[in-house]
């Protein structure tokens, strides 16, 4: 069943947008229209549909009009021309009251920079839509709490957004949208502001939530990885116009034009995967100045690992110690890690391609640390996780 139908929607920014619309109709480019009329083309004659329960990822580089298109769906941005139908309702012809009830009943929205209300607690943020709807506190509280527990935020109700990490803040953003139980989720680069590891977690979580919720989701992204992972179908945009619509396989195997081709050219599984996208978090580290062999041993035991990375006071990676060395040093009664610190080691940069990692990882007796430009330890790559990620991607293709 078609949940959202977008027909020929255009958005022209600037005074008297009709002129731009005429030029668009005659087939002039965005650049040409800007030069001739000073009008900005946000979206150019976009048509697509979203089926019920489907995730459609709208993808493109920044400035391609994807966020504008999303905002046209609930008319946060007024489309200049075209028609949008949600559940058989012509959204473009709704009056202010009709629009408000549509936004409350059908479309929950999640924003790139979370857009949480800083003066409200987590619970009050999650309640916002229900409050606007006019529900009494006694009715809205349980529903908001349920939405919070859906995204794994039990017990954080009374915290304020600034006390939460980025990932948790976006969970609140998601709960705020889910509390209204809308059929449709509009997600505007919802995970782009998050660290790569957290982003992957959130993507996984969205997918597992989606298994039970079966919402209709329009997801905006500039990240091909993300689009391939989340999208049942992908809508590719360039300069405000849609250049291709298709399943991830179709996009990858049969790119519609040069632009799409360039976009997906990189998608050789080992190339598109970087150290950053396959690394796993570091569960324990030692500090060179404060931790001795015994403390290091204890940390390794607790984390269930046999190699412990050592950081200096500026949190820069200095080397690692092994459990065996640490045990011996402890027996010798040494107080610091200097004698057993191994500083000669292999490291990877976050952007190192996965194919290079395979040869490095071969016979490497310790996990491969991924180190940022500033020398900070971002995560580690282990053989199992790397192969697992590649197998996943193989299936996606």
């Amino acid at each position, binding site marked *: 069943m078609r949940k959202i139908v977008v027909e020929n929607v255009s958005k022209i920014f600037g005074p008297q947008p009709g002129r731009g619309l005429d030029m668009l109709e005659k087939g002039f480019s965005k650049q040409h229209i800007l030069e001739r009329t000073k009008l900005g083309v946000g979206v150019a004659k976009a048509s697509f549909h979203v089926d019920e329960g489907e995730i459609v990822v709208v993808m493109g580089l920044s400035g391609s009009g994807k966020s504008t298109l999303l905002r046209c769906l609930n008319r946060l941005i007024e489309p200049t021309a075209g028609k949008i139908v949600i559940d058989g309702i012509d959204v473009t012809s709704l009056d202010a009251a009709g629009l408000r009830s549509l936004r409350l009943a059908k479309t929950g*929205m999640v924003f790139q920079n979370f*857009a949480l209300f800083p003066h409200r607690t987590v619970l009050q943020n999650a309640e916002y839509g229900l409050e606007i709807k006019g529900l009494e506190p006694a009715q809205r509280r349980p529903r908001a709490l349920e939405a919070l527990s859906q995204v794994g935020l039990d017990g954080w109700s009374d915290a304020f957004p600034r006390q939460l990490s980025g990932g948790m803040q976006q969970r609140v953003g998601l709960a705020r949208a889910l509390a209204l139980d809308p059929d449709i989720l509009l997600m505007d680069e919802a995970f782009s502001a998050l660290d790569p590891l957290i982003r992957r977690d959130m993507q996984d979580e969205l997918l597992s939530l989606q298994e039970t919720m079966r919402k209709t989701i329009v997801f905006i992204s500039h990240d091909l990885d993300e689009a391939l992972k989340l999208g049942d179908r992908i809508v590719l945009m360039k300069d405000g116009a849609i250049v291709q619509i298709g399943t991830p396989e179709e996009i990858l195997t049969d790119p519609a034009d040069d632009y799409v081709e360039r976009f997906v050219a990189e998608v050789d599984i080992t190339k598109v995967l970087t150290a950053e996208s396959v690394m796993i978090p570091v569960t324990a580290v030692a500090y060179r100045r404060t931790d001795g062999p015994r403390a290091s041993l204890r940390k390794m035991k607790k984390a269930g690992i046999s190699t412990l990375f050592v950081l200096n006071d500026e949190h820069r990676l200095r080397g690692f110690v092994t459990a065996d060395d640490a045990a011996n040093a402890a027996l010798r009664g040494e107080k610091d890690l200097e004698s057993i610190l191994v500083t000669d080691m292999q490291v990877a940069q976050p952007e190192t391609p996965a194919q290079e990692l395979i040869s490095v990882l071969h016979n490497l007796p310790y996990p491969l640390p991924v180190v940022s430009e500033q020398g900070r330890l971002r995560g580690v790559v282990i053989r199992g996780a790397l192969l697992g990620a590649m197998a996943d991607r193989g299936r996606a293709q």
Partner: protein
Amino acid sequence: MNIPRLPIGEAMEAVIDFFVTHCSIFTKAFASLTGYGLDMAEAGLLVLPPWLLILVIAGLALWLSRSRAVAAFSLVGLLLIWNMGLWEATVSTLALVLVATLAAISVAVPLGVGAAMNRTAERLVMPVLDVMQTMPAFVYLIPAIPFFGLGKVAAIFSTVIFSMPPAIRLTCLGIKQVPAELSECAEAFGSSRWQKLFKLELPLAMPTIMAGINQTVMLALSMVVIAAMIGARGLGGEVWKAIQRLEMGRGFEAGLCIVIVAVILDRVLQKAGARK
């Protein structure tokens, strides 16, 4: 050279005359409302014996500012005022400031909200505020007299006019500073214009609005002193008397009281505004 002089002053007089003759219903309403409010405030403050009121104010200062230093300063400062025999004049000045500030805020905050919500309103209000803030304070005393005659109501009228601009400006600024993303989010969740104002914009703008109110109170205090010239009495009246009789010591004492009151009001309001 014989360029005719433009009758700007005359025009202004004609405007004032017009208001005096045709808008007496408003001036009378304002006069009785503020006169009543002022009597109530003053009587209310004088009901308590000075020592008790001083304790109450010091306690209030502690509660609002959460600062023992501010509370201690209030206590000592007010006791000093009492000791100098200027307690009643101080209470009278406080009542004037209270009533004038309340009147100013009740006009200024809605005006600031209006200016923030509507570009045309903003374009109208902002130049007027520029003029109001550069016009010398004394000038405001003159039109107050034909409207209300000499006395406290005239003093309050000129004080309200003089002290309003910062509250309007900062209310407008505070609301315009609300991040566009939050505003968009409120709309995406179906908020009406008023729901957005009351649930998002006003709460977020509150610290800025409080800063504006703080300035308004300070300006009101400075103006009720000047307004002693048209019969405001209070501490300003003491200063004015001291000038006319060349009583150096009396004038200094009254001036000191004004400083004490100003410091207390400023610190309490600043801390209360910054608390959130």
